[in-house]
């Protein structure tokens, strides 16, 4: 009798920020990630202490990504705040992180001293950058460091053609699908997105984005929804999107030459 085995998923977009800590204590939060059948979760938090709480409990499950925000309100101010740089340097000394992000930077935000330092730190520590950015900002990141590894949060919230252009132009660009719904409906992958997935089978990965505490309840829902539409794709592509691309991103960042 065939077993109903859940497809393993790496959720590339989890936050465990301060307002979630009391609602879901770390044990409960880790329980949610496990219950969703996640193979791993990229966790970044405001503040980073949230990520460390989960990592201490489940290092095999939680993949720490260092967020430059010490609290939520820094989303729109952080690129002008020089104190971010020593904060990141201090945290990175722990040696546990695989990326820096998810940060918000648009257009010429990338030219600020803080973002330039972030790109430098990612290069020095062999980390990927989880960028919630427009295409312009992503291009500026690659202009600064052509060998950077970038995970494009929400696939830039842009359309299929723009994503195609970016993935074609930048072989070290990956894209998460967090908070996007248009690529599948009722378990059927949209034809344009299917073509994109097939053209770039090694770039996409799922994500939830737990940007408020309530959305922790959505992690299981998101995983179930993802498994539903993944069934519409060939098995190898399913494995790539579900987990292999995320793992390859980590390896790619670690193996880069400085």
């Amino acid at each position, binding site marked *: 009798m065939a077993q109903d085995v859940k497809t393993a998923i790496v959720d590339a977009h989890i936050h465990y920020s301060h307002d979630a800590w009391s*609602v879901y204590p770390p044990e409960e939060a880790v329980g949610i990630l496990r219950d969703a059948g996640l193979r791993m979760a990229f966790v970044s938090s405001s503040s980073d202490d949230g990520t460390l709480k989960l990592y201490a409990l489940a290092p095999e499950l939680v993949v720490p990504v260092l967020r430059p925000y010490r609290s*939520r*309100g820094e*989303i729109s101010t952080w690129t002008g705040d020089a104190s971010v740089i020593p904060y990141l340097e201090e945290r990175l000394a722990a040696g546990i992180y695989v990326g820096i992000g998810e940060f*918000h930077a648009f257009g010429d935000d990338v030219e600020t001293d803080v973002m330039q330092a972030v790109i430098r730190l990612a290069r020095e520590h062999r980390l990927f950058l989880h960028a*919630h950015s427009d295409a312009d900002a992503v291009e500026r990141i690659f202009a600064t460091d052509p060998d950077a590894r970038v995970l494009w949060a*929400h696939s830039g*919230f842009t359309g299929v053609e723009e994503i195609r252009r970016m993935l074609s132009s930048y072989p070290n660009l990956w894209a998460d699908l967090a*908070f*996007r*719904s*248009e690529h599948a*409906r009722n378990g059927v992958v949209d034809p344009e997105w299917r073509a994109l997935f097939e053209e770039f089978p090694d770039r996409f990965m799922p994500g939830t*984005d737990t*940007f*408020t*505490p*309530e*959305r922790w*309840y*959505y992690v299981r*829902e*998101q995983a179930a929804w993802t498994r539903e539409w993944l069934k519409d794709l060939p098995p190898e592509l399913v494995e790539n999107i579900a987990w292999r691309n995320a793992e390859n991103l980590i390896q790619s960042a670690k193996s880069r030459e400085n």
Partner: protein
Amino acid sequence: MIIAHGPWPPAPDPDISNRFSGDDDAIRFGRALFHDARLSADGSMQCATCHEARHAMGDGKPRALGRRELDRNTPALANLSGRRWFGWDGRSDNLWAQSIHPILNPDELAQDENSLARRIIEEADLARTYLEVTGRSPVDDPPREVLVNIAKSLAAWQETLVTPRTAFDRFRDALAEDRDVPDNVFSRSARRGLKLFVGEGRCSLCHFGPNFSNDEFHHAGVPHFTRNGSVDPGRHGGIGKYRASPYRRTGKFSDEDPESAARAPGNFVVRSHDDWGRFRVPSLRNVAATAPYMHDGSVADLPAVVRHYDEINMNLFHEDGESLLRPLGLDATGRADLEAFLRTLTGDPVTATP
């Protein structure tokens, strides 16, 4: 823009999925059923227990008190005709389907199809009126058909509940006719509040049209945990319930012709991740009489509503998920003006149309 918020009352808009819509006998039956405790399993509760005329057809409580405290605020029943969606989460696309939920909810009237059908059959006056309205004895109808017919009768009456004309309507009509109204009808403060409402406040982007609702779903910056620590999924869950329901406009219990039903909005609804925590935009008609506010009754009064939107916490929204709301930064006069305008949307108690 202002004129588009009227005229009031709107022309009758019969529910084509309910063959009893507008039928006088069904309306009378529906009214009687609404106030009859025999509609509940144990005879202890009426629809009117929670939908009281003295509370503008709501209950005045933060969260509905059925057989226990429920998770959502009791909606004030008025101006229901012509709506696309019903319930805070839009789980129904017609009023009779929505009326079925409290009948079957174990925490409300707590019936099931069989117990309700038995009750209608066993109570001679109810069985007689059922026959008069439907043309069939409840004995001859399957229990589910009895449930649907009872719900359709309840809906037929609820459709007649309309809020009266208000100071705003007099102002709006005068504007449409290029007249003015005296300040004692529509104050200077209310005029400034109206300007905020349709202008920089952007309230009218959601609270639009004669019923002051776009009949869609939105995240209003209200946390959506329930009291037991779980989460109210809002529209995301509502779409799931809608799809699972046999009582849709396209379903076999609907009286709508299939060609028309095929154009119903429910056929085109798509569930997305940002439906999580969205709730139906409520009408603002009679708003001063329907406190407390929001899907969970967590905002106590109108000044608090104005303050909520004035200081809205953008951290509750996704950076790319909310384009309408932002803190308004009103001063005390601005807040008072907006409240003064909202109060002009309230008139006398809800009445049934003749």
